[in-house]
């Protein structure tokens, strides 16, 4: 076994490295000029200005709305679809090809087409986020069901269980870690979908804000919404990891099964 990881040492290393990066970054900004490299200090100043004027919030709210609606629909549709595909072989045969096709298609390339067909409204962007989220959720949920221990299903059969009880007692808890992983991957994809859709739609949202400031060569201000998106992604991913540990306390230790 490796030596015990003292959390104080772990965090000292992490914080030390972050400080080092900030110093080098600030120095590089001074060397190359703020138009090319935004300095950390410059970003903080821009962030304060954007918050004070209410501009950040005004552009952030529509993005959050699109994100949460598209993500929620993606999960609500994707989880049951994935579970069903994992359980019923014919459904799996039928859908495996198309789903892998959609999952591997670079969705960003399709966004302009979707916008042209469906228009530039919020519902189109919600649809785009949905499309970005739903396939990773489906694929992982289906994998979770297909990964269920056959011995446990036979146990259920030997006790004369119904299909409903098999779902409740065995299939759902067994697939849960996979489902949560699919959702976590979906968060990252949702952020990409929302921002790229806003780049093209060019009406509102943080994506539009980023484009505006980039076009004015205000790199520091353009990076502020990016930082907000990063915080959003890291925050929700961390929350989901925590939820994962809480909901599946057996999964960490039960590795050898």
């Amino acid at each position, binding site marked *: 076994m490796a030596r015990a990881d003292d959390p104080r040492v772990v965090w000292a290393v992490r914080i030390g490295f972050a400080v080092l990066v900030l110093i080098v970054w600030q120095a590089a900004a001074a060397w190359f000029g703020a138009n090319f490299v935004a300095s950390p200090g410059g970003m903080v100043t821009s962030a304060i200005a954007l918050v004070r004027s209410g501009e950040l919030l005004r552009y952030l709210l529509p993005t959050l709305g699109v994100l949460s609606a598209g993500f929620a629909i993606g999960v609500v549709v994707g989880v049951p679809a994935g579970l069903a595909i994992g359980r019923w072989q014919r459904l799996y045969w039928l859908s495996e090809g198309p789903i892998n096709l959609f999952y591997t298609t670079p969705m960003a390339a399709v966004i302009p087409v979707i916008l042209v067909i469906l228009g530039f409204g919020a519902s189109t962007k919600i649809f785009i986020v949905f499309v970005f989220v739903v396939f990773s959720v489906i694929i992982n949920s289906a994998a979770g069901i297909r990964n269920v221990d056959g*011995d*446990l299903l*036979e*146990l259920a*059969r*030997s*006790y*004369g*269980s*119904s299909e409903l*009880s098999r779902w409740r*007692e*065995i299939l759902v*808890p*067994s697939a*849960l870690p996979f489902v949560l992983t699919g959702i976590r991957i979906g968060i990252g994809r949702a952020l990409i979908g929302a921002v790229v859709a806003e780049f093209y739609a060019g009406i509102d949202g943080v994506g539009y804000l980023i484009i505006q400031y980039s076009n004015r060569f205000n790199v520091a201000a353009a990076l502020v919404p990016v930082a907000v998106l990063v915080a959003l992604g890291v925050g929700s991913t961390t929350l989901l990891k925590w939820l994962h540990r809480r909901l*599946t*306390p*057996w*999964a960490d*230790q*039960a590795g050898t*099964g």
Partner: protein
Amino acid sequence: MPQIRVDDVEKRFGEVQALSRVNLDVERNEFVSILGPSGCGKTTLLRIVAGLIPADGGTVYVDDEPVTAPRRNMTLVFQNFRLLPWQTVEDNVGYGVRLRGASKKEARQQVGPYIKMVGLEGFETAYPYQLSGGMQQRVGLARALAIDPQILLMDEPFGALDAQTREIMQEELLRIWNATHKTVAFVTHSIDEALVLSDRVLVMAARPGRIIETIAVPFDRPRDPAHLRAQPQFTELRMRMWELLRGPEQAEAASG
């Protein structure tokens, strides 16, 4: 009438004749072991009796009815325990009780005596990964007993345990059997285990899987395994089964 009757059962897996015309009876409240080398089809036989797989020929009767699917008065204990990793000890034990319509809470209240019976008091809220192999199989046994079946089918239930734990579990099973008098069909490849536990031992041979001998075990109950093993008659029976198991075909097969 016997509680379990296996009548001319045949089973093939492709080219392999797994079971060839197997006949056996298990009386009510009788403890019968099915003893044989690995690959002789003893587990296959038990799975057919349990209604998990169909026979290719012949019929299994339980309480005079042909078995076509798992039956409610019969539960199976598995060699690899098969506990639900996401459920606590009491919820694992309550599995069958819930399947029979009890709520989670009702099931927890009902399984108390069975958790006590297998000596797991104080571990009700532990998860399987926190238990040793022996304790996990205690959970498996309690789960099977908790629906109060008339018949227990046990498929090498102590085969995955270390020697010491195995003997402790045998004593536990003897004690529980004395208290409940279930009808038991117990599959094992251990001569010692079959002798310690059973009223009757059916000895099987492989290729094709078949029963070659039925041996009555004459020892009184309740039994003390340590005392039993010291008896000359125990050693005699042991020798006889050993000869049966390594019979002419086995010796031939071993030499190629």
